[in-house]
């Protein structure tokens, strides 16, 4: 059964309760950033802040003014680039459709952060029990523990405006279509953002304006390098590893058989005899 989170930005009042609920449930540290000239608290999602409320002051085509808000978090792509590039297979998609990172397997290589089409996943620093500082990839898990236990994700649970709702993807799609019809008058550019380039996402939007206005890619794709890496290079790399091991082994055996050292010693002796 595929589940999805629908973010209806036209209902959002920018109260930021979703940000607080997320920090609270996932036990994330506060991360103060310098004032950047807008009401927005953080520039973007990172390893310590898994969702950020984006605030845009937008001039409409007819010259009017709109405040545009967007709950910004991991999109949980159906075809997840981060999952494809992870060399440790630490990133996986659960049966409910959310993409999660196994912290035990992650080595902090940052391939996922470089390949995320939405620039969401980031590394965060941790101090281990041994006092060592390590970096691990971190992002929204769609509150995996909660949804597996039959509860709503923390952000959807707290949202007083029902701007964030979570449920079966087909039901959420229907809800989005219905809402789109309702908001068309006020927002003529309103659209559903569930990009096909990544085979749809498990966090999708009803946007009031074009995706670009919200800094979202028009048509995000899994980078070709990611596909090549996971689907071809990585399995081949493993096969090649076998080939080189064999080469080393056979090399060792042939060396032993020919016993070059022995020959060298003999040669040495002849040389010496020559000198004599």
């Amino acid at each position, binding site marked *: 059964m595929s589940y999805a989170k629908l973010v209806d930005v036209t209902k959002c009042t920018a109260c930021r309760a979703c940000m607080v609920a997320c920090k609270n449930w996932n036990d994330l540290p506060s991360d103060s950033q310098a004032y950047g000239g807008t009401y927005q608290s953080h520039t973007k999602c990172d390893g310590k802040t898994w969702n950020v409320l984006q605030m845009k002051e937008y001039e409409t085509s007819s010259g009017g003014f709109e405040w545009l808000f967007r709950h910004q978090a991991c999109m949980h792509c159906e075809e997840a680039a981060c999952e494809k590039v992870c060399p440790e297979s630490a990133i996986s998609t659960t049966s409910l459709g959310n993409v999660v990172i196994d912290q035990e397997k992650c080595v902090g290589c940052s391939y996922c952060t470089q390949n995320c089409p939405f620039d969401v996943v980031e590394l965060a620093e941790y101090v281990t029990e041994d006092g060592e500082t390590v970096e691990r990839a971190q992002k929204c898990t769609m509150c995996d523990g909660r949804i597996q236990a039959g*509860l709503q994700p923390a952000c959807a*649970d707290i949202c007083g405006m029902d701007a964030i709702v979570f449920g079966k993807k087909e039901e959420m799609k229907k809800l989005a279509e219905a809402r789109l019809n309702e908001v068309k008058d006020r927002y003529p550019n309103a659209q559903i953002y569930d990009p096909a380039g990544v085979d749809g996402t498990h966090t999708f939007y009803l946007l009031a304006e074009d995706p670009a206005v919200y800094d979202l890619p028009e048509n995000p794709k899994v980078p070709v390098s990611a596909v090549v890496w996971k689907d071809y290079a990585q399995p081949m790399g493993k096969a090649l590893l076998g080939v080189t091991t064999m080469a080393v082994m056979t090399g060792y055996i042939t060396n032993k058989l020919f016993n070059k050292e022995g020959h060298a010693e003999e040669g040495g002796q002849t040389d010496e005899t020559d000198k004599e």
Partner: protein
Amino acid sequence: MNPNVVSEEYLNLQKAIINKHDVLRERFQAELNLHLSKDELNEEIPVLPQLKGSPVPGELYRKSIKEIESVLSEHQPELGEELSRLTANLTDEDILKWIKESVTYNTAYFQTFAEKNELSAWLPHFLAEQALRPFMHLLAQACRPFINEFEVMGTCPCCGEPHRLAKIENKGRKFLYCPRCETEWKQRRLQCVHCGDDRHEHLFYITIKEDETAKLEVCETCNNYLKLVETKKLLEKKTAALLDLETIHLDFVAQEEGYGEGQ
């Protein structure tokens, strides 16, 4: 996070029975055309006792008993012999009597029946009540268009079951939810459903540590309680009967704290 005290086995049996109720309700719907008109009903009394005829035809009730029996013996094969002995000896007269007594929830009658027929004391009433539920659901369906206009104090406006369960839906709206007939109707958030007291200083909540979905609402005026389930927090929509069962730990807590009928 899951304080549920009901065993997995029993929960599965109940879920199977609830699924069977749905199947039976669909099947009986065509045969049982319940048409109710609000004008003929008193809005201060539950619908069920106001009906002129029985909403449960004997023939269908017997079918319902048969179906519930098969679910029971499938899940608990050791009951098979006792169940078949019980249902084989049920006369048409018994059936009519069972309908009447199960509608009025007459446990005493079923206990005497069990004694007379040398059956487990719990069995006849359990079977009778479970077989009655699909008809209650149908009655609730027929009442749905006007049930919110009813003002019945203390019981379900459809079947007359005392209140014990409510759900908090989106935007904090409170709906009472009847585990017997699955009727739901909107209620004021800050008011005791048993005595109508709306002085907030007399209403309290008892919450269970680590259970964020369910809590108790207790009233110091009448010493009664109501179980509140925040269905907004749940992924799946659940029937009242199932929610009631899954929150049975709250009943224990409330009664231990001295709330409830006869406390």
